[in-house]
C-alpha cells in the first residue's frame, strides 16, 4: 500500500450528466490536497464517492488500500468527514454529541478525554456542556473537528470547511489542519478559498466540469499566480 487515498479512473454519471470524468488522484500521509473548482465541478461528488455515499459508475476509489465500494463499512474507520454544514443533535450538548459519534466509531473515551478533544478543537470549555442548539456555526464546526480528531482517522475529508466562518475562526481552523498534518493525517479538502488553499495545502488540484484539469504543488507558488491560473482555467 503506497497511498493512503487513491482514485483510479473514478467516474460518476447522473442520468445524462457526467459529474466526474476519470479522476486519478493519490494522497500520501501528511499531505493536504485542496480541490478548487466552481459549484458543480465535481468536488462534492468526489468526496461522496470516497465516503462510499455514492457508487461509482466506473473506476474505483481506495482508502488505506481497501476498495471503497467493496468495503463500505471498513473504510469508514480510516476516514473522518466534516460536512460543509456541521449539523449535530440540537438537543444534546457538544460533549454528548462527541461522545455519541466517537462511540459509534468504536471508541469509548472518558469525560476528561472528550473534554480534551473539544479543547484541542478550540471549543471553549464552558460551551461543552451547553446544548448544540445554542451554538454558532463556528462552534458546531469545532465539535465536528473534535469528532474527526477523536476518531484518529488517517484521512480527513473536508467539504468547504471555511465557508461562512469569520476570519478568526478560519485561521484557527488552518492551524488545526497543520497540527493534524504533523501527526501524519492526510487531508482532502474541497474549497473555493484559493488563498487558504495555498496557505495550508501541499498540493492544489483544479477541477472543471468533472475533470481534474491541473495539479500544482503549492511550494514556490504564490497566491496571485494561483488565482490567475485558476481564473484562466475557468474562462476556457
Amino acid at each position, binding site marked *: 500500500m503506497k497511498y493512503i487515498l487513491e482514485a483510479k479512473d473514478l467516474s460518476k454519471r447522473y442520468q445524462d450528466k457526467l459529474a466526474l470524468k476519470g479522476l486519478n488522484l493519490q494522497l500520501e500521509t501528511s499531505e493536504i490536497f485542496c480541490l478548487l473548482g466552481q459549484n458543480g465541478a465535481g468536488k462534492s461528488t468526489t468526496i461522496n464517492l470516497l*465516503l462510499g*455515499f455514492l457508487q461509482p459508475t466506473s473506476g474505483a476509489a481506495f482508502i488505506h488500500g481497501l476498495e471503497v465500494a467493496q468495503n463500505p*463499512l*471498513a473504510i*469508514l*474507520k480510516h*476516514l*473522518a*468527514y*466534516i*460536512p460543509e*454544514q*456541521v*449539523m*449535530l*443533535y*440540537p*438537543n*444534546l450538548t457538544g460533549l*454528548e454529541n462527541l*461522545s*455519541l*459519534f466517537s*462511540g*459509534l*466509531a*468504536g471508541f469509548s473515551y472518558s469525560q476528561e478525554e472528550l473534554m480534551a478533544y473539544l479543547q484541542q478543537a478550540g471549543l471553549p470549555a464552558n460551551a461543552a456542556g451547553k*446544548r448544540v442548539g445554542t451554538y454558532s456555526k463556528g462552534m458546531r464546526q469545532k465539535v*465536528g473537528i473534535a*469528532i474527526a480528531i477523536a476518531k484518529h482517522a488517517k484521512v480527513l*475529508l473536508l467539504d468547504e470547511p471555511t465557508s461562512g466562518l469569520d476570519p478568526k475562526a478560519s485561521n484557527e481552523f488552518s492551524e488545526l489542519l497543520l497540527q493534524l498534518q504533523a501527526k501524519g493525517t492526510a487531508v482532502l479538502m474541497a474549497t473555493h478559498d484559493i488563498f487558504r488553499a495555498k496557505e495550508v495545502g501541499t498540493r492544489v488540484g483544479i477541477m472543471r466540469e468533472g475533470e481534474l484539469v491541473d495539479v500544482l504543488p503549492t511550494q514556490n507558488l504564490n497566491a496571485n499566480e494561483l488565482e490567475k491560473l485558476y481564473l484562466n482555467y475557468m474562462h476556457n
Partner: protein
Amino acid sequence: MKKILLLIKFEALSFRADKGLLLLTALMLAAGLYSIYYGTQEIARQRENLAELEQLETHTIEELKKKYPGEADAGTVAYYFPVFAQNQPQPWAGLALGQRDVNPYYLKLRLLNLQAQLYDTENINPLKVLSGNFDLAFVLVYLFPLFIITLGYNVLSQEKERGTLPLLLSQPIRLSTVVISKLGFQVILVLGMAWLLSILGFIGAGISPDGRIALWLLVVTLYCLFWFGATFLVIALRKNSSFNAVILLGIWLVLTMVLPSLMNIYVTVSQPLPQGIDLTVQQREAMHSGWDKPKEETMQQFYALYPQWADDTPIKGRFSWHWYYAMHEMGDQAVKDLVQAYKSGLQKRQALTYDLSGFSLPVNAQAALNALAGTDLDSHLQFMESIEQYHVSLKEFYYPFLFRQLPFTHADYEKLPTHRFTTKPATDLVLGGITKLLFSTVLVMTGGYLFFQRKN
C-alpha cells in the same frame, strides 16, 4: 451490538431533552391512569348496583311476608316478586368495558312470558355510549398507535432534514442499524409504558394472576409491534417527515375508523335483524289471545308440553293462577321459531364480525381484549342464554306450588333459585386474535425490512 446500545442510550438522552415528547409521554401516562380509574370505577358502580338489587329482592320479600303473614298463594308471589338475573363482571371488565354499557348487565324477571321481559334495557345515556368508554383498552387500541406514530414518523427523515445524516453515515455503521436502534429505544419506551399501565390496571382492577395476564400482555405487545412495523414500513419509503405523518395517520384512520365502519355496514346490510321487533309484537298477540280462548284449550296445549303437570280437573271461575302462567308459557312457545331466528341472526352477525376482523388490526385487538374481559356480544348472548335457563328453573320452582296447589310458606322464599352469571373468557377467540396479530405484525415488519434494504 455495542453500537446499538450506544445509539439507544443517546436516543434516550435526546428524548429526555425533548420537552414536547416528554409532555406527550406524560399525557399518555395520564390518559392511561385515568382510563384505569374510569374503567374500574365504572365496574365498581355496576357491582354496587348489582348488590342493591339483592336489597331490592330482600325488601320485596319483607313486604310480601308482611302482606301475607301466613301461607301465601304462589301465583301471587310469582306475580309480585321480581327477581334479578345478574351478569357479574369479572375484574377484567374494568380494563375493557366492551359492550357492558350498551347491553344491560342485569334483568328483572318474573314468572311471566320470558320474551316480553328478555329485551328490556337499562337506563343509559345514549350520548355517553355513543362517545364510548375511556377505558384502558381504548388507550391501548386507539391512542398508543398515535403515540407510536408520533415517536417514530421522522426517525430517518429528521436526520436528513436537520442535516445530521452525513456525519452519522461517515461513521462505520449501517443506516438500518441506526434506524432499528432508534426504533428499538421507542419500542422499549412504548412497551414499557404499555406493560406498566397494564400491570397498574391489573392491580387497580384487583385481578388475580392467571394465564390471562400473559394473553393480555401478548395482545398488547403484538399490537404495539404491529404499529412499529407499520411505521418502519413507511420510514422505508424514505420520504420527508410531513409525508410520513400524513400517511401514518391515514393508515391509523383507515384501520380504526373507516374500515370498521364499512365493515359494520356490510354486516348490517348482509345480516338484517327485523326479528327482534317481530317477535315482541307476535308474542304479545299469542299470549293475550289466551284470554279470549277457552281455558281448556290452553291447558291441553300446555299439558302436551308438560305432561308431568297434567290434571283433568276443570278450571272453575274466571281466573286461576296456574292457567295464567300456562298462558304465559304458551306465549313463549308461540314465538319459538322467531326467537331462534333472532338469536341465530345475532350469532351470525358476531361470527361475520369475527371473520372480517382480520382486515383491521384495531378491531381484532379490541375484540381480543373484550373476549378476554368477557365483555363482548358473545358474552352477552351467553348471559341471555343463562337467563333462559334461570327462567326454566323459576318455572321448575313455582310449578309444583301452582299445579299441585301447595301452600307457599315464609320458608319457601329462601328456596327461590338465584342467578349469578359470570362470563368465562373466550380463550379460543383470544388465541385466534393473537394469531392474526402475529401474522400481520410479521408481515409489516418483513415488508418494512425488505423495502428498507431494497432502497439502500
